[in-house]
């Protein structure tokens, strides 16, 4: 598959973020006393970093299933905004479509919207490769952490900065290609406001505000259709 190598290169920073984070999750998970392969299972079918970390606390407190459901929905509600802006890109049908939607994490979204597909006419192969590779990194991290736990020697602390660095690079790239400063201004304004007002729900608040402002902006006719 000719998309594999470009996807590998593009997703390398995600590997540097997901593996240490996955390991951290795996270590916390096996602290709870569950067998290691259930960390693998969780990474495989949930595939959501923040939610999995939150789950550690919920599991330790023996939270009820309803509470788990509501907390997960609230934490991951921001994914709704991802799908909203990917409708025109995710055209493929069937099992591949299912998998693309299933694997829609923050980082996958950033790569899909921020890096060019090697063949624009068959971009879905590229998106699938990105999704699958990120999934692999995450599951590997979770498994390693649960298996090897505290025995890991190499000091990887700080390596998860790779994710922030990736977002910064993608931001620069977007800045070069999207000539309109307006979405960046809206994003910064809403983001900063949300951090100041409601830090814990920062993503949901800023994304909702952003959506509203972008819609208003278009309605007032200032943006080109």
């Amino acid at each position, binding site marked *: 598959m000719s998309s594999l190598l470009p996807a590998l290169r593009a997703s390398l920073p995600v590997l*540097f973020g997901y593996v240490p984070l996955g390991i951290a999750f795996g270590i916390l998970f096996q602290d*709870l006393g*569950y067998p290691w392969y*259930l960390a693998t*299972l*969780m990474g495989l*079918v*949930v*595939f*959501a970093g923040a*939610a*999995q970390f939150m789950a550690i606390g919920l599991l330790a407190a*023996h939270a009820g*299933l309803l509470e*788990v459901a509501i907390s*997960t*929905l609230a934490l991951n*509600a921001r*994914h709704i905004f*991802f*799908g*909203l*802006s*990917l*409708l*025109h890109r*995710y055209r493929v049908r069937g099992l591949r479509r299912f998998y693309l*939607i*299933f694997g829609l994490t923050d980082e996958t*979204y*950033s790569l899909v919207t*921020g890096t060019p597909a090697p063949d624009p006419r068959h971009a879905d192969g590229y998106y699938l490769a990105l999704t699958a590779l990120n999934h692999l990194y995450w599951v590997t991290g979770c498994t390693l952490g649960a298996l090897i736990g505290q025995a890991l020697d190499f000091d990887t602390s*700080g*390596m998860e*900065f*790779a994710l*922030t*660095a*990736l*977002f*910064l*690079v*993608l*931001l*620069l790239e*977007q800045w070069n290609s*999207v000539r309109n400063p*307006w*979405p*960046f201004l809206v*994003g910064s304004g809403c*983001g900063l406001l949300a951090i100041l007002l409601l830090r814990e729900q*920062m*993503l949901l608040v800023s*994304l909702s505000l*952003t959506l509203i402002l*972008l*819609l208003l902006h*278009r309605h007032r006719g200032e943006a080109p*259709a």
Partner: protein
Amino acid sequence: MSGTGYLLAVIGVMAAATFATRLTPFLLLQHKADHPLLLYLGRMMPPAIITILVLYGLQGIGVGSLHAALGVAAASTVTLVLHRLFRHPLLSIFGGTACYMVLLQGGLLA
């Protein structure tokens, strides 16, 4: 241990809830994918979202202390400068991450 059954139920619930949040827009709006409004959002939201994700990442890491914030600022600057100069994503990311790891493991960010 409270039982593997409980854990499996939790995993199942979380998988369903997570997938639901990702699936919803596709389920509800796919037949309108070519609507001008959704195309507009498809163009405008990615830069806004990436800006928000940058802020989210920065505030997640850089808040422990002034030192932590300065360390994050330094590593971010390295990333941005490298990218401005060379336009090579992996170099920029590696450079910024290496800078951050050195500062962190060198005990400068406590």
